[in-house]
């Protein structure tokens, strides 16, 4: 018989359910495209408010991603490689904000870093730093909810990495720091990149913690998701256009990273 016969046909149920899933993802996008006021799209996008929100979103989410890498990679390394007392508890604590309702996270941030907060009162008194309702506050809120995505991705990659590669580096005379820079981090580069993209996407879409902790001030703390949500009441057309702009930005990043991203998924884990 023909070669086609040798291919295993998936069960009809699987095909059907998978098709429903695809439709479920495709329909909302189609909805946006359907309602978009194409003729006035440029007008909505070029309004100062929209441009500010877009700019703020990009800047704050990139800052949050950078901070997540700077602090999250060392945290992931400690969780993966060091047998610390209470490691499970520390991990649970650091990943909590990923499952917490973002609004609750925002409230918690207020009590910690607010002007009268646990740490915030000292920040204010000693350094004159007030995080709530500032652009820095947006970055703090986004980092708080997004960093766990980087930590779990990088920790998983470190656990899959054979630590004997690091042993080999050390017998070659590499200090722990040199080993980390030249062996460990390059080896987990795909996971680091994937984690950074997830983190960035989460930060870009952050809404609950941001509006609770940083408020909604156009130009300083009003990011795209806030602008979209509030625009829905006052100016629905503008909201749809802003939403589509976000879709476009995210889509562009996914396409740009496609090779790394899927390459990472294809690549089998390193054997232990």
């Amino acid at each position: 018989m023909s070669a086609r016969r040798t291919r295993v046909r998936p069960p009809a149920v699987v095909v059907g359910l998978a098709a429903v899933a695809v439709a479920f993802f495709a329909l909302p996008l189609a909805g946006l495209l359907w309602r978009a006021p194409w003729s006035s799209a440029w007008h909505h996008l070029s309004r100062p408010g929209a441009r500010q929100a877009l700019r703020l979103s990009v800047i704050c989410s990139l800052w949050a991603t950078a901070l997540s890498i700077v602090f999250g990679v060392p945290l992931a390394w400690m969780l993966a490689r060091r047998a610390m007392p209470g490691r499970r508890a520390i991990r649970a604590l650091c990943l909590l904000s990923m499952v917490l309702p973002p609004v609750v996270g925002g409230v918690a941030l207020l009590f910690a870093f607010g002007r009268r907060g646990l740490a915030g009162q000292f920040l204010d008194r000693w350094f004159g730093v007030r995080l709530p309702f500032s652009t820095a506050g947006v970055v703090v809120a986004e980092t708080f909810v997004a960093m766990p995505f980087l930590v779990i991705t990088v920790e998983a990659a470190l656990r899959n990495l054979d630590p004997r590669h690091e042993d080999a580096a050390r017998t070659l005379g590499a200090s722990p720091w040199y080993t980390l820079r030249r062996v460990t981090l390059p080896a987990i580069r795909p996971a680091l990149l994937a984690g950074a993209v997830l983190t960035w996407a989460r930060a870009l879409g952050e809404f609950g913690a941001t509006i609770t902790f940083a408020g909604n001030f156009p130009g300083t703390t009003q990011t795209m998701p806030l602008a979209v949500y509030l625009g829905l009441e006052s100016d629905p057309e503008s909201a749809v256009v802003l939403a589509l702009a976000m879709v476009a930005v995210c889509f562009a990043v996914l396409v740009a990273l496609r090779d790394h991203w899927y390459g990472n998924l294809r690549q089998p884990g390193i054997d232990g």
Partner: protein
Amino acid sequence: MSLEARVARTMGSLQLDVDLCVGDGEVLALLGPNGAGKTTLLRVLAGLAGVDVGRIAIDGTVVDDPLAGRFVPAEHRSVGMVFQDYLLFDHLRVIDNVAFGICARGASRAGGRAEARRWLERVGLAERADARPPQLSGGQAQRVALARALATSPRLMLLDEPLAALDAAGRAELRHDLRTHLGEFGGSTVLVTHDPVDAFAIADRVAVLEGGRVTQTGSLDAVAAQPRSRYVAELVGVNLLRGEGRGGVVRTTADVAVVAADAPDGAVYAVIHPHAVSLTRSAPSGSSVRNVWPVTVAEVGRLGGRARVRVAGPVPLVAEVTAAALAELDLRPGDEVFAGVKATEVQVYPA
């Protein structure tokens, strides 16, 4: 002495307790079954783990001595290590793998690469300099790993089953290369293997590690001639019996008398080569064979024109017979036969 090590370390159920001395230019092969502590010992010598009790000196420099509060970590020891599965850095080109150690010790990238290129030429892989490790064959990868380790000019080389992951052809080729490069290497070498062929080809001396202790050491010929453990006996393919010698007769631990030509009194080992064991269907009569035991065939294995027959009984033995003899006797597992050994074929030495 270039390496002097007295190592005691407990790791789980393993209690490692070893004394080793390896001279300049000497290659010591460490033979032993799995779980004997070979890899742990290498890691301790490399500085990837420490001793609980003991002292390690490389080239006269003490690198580990808990009593003196001294421990030099791996990156500051002059040690090169080669692993069974190469452990090359896949994200670096071959040349940068070899240059890694040179650069880690402070050389410039260009300087490291120049030196690395010389080493790649020595191991015959100059044309693969720009390849990535996953593109190499196993033998090539291991030669890169060898060059990478030697390029740091270590005083001590540690090789952890470097040939175990290779196929037969690659193994023979690399065995030859290892002998060449380790022969030119001026420092001490410890080579872990469980193939006596490797030890014979590469090493000057062997030490047998079993259950965390060195049970035998010396030239491979000496160790093979007088095995002192079942592991070594099986490794060199002979039958080993343990017993009590008295008046030319060895009484084994299973209380069977084995007649030997020359047997010292006291605790002894007796070695019988498989080719000295004859198998017959009926008890031989009027024969000069002094040792005849009724046995049961347990296993028959053929290899080319010869066959090895394992028999069970009061004296468990392996007999080597020709394929023709095997066919004539028609031996099958469970058959009752007689095993005969001439007294002159039993070599006895004090335990």
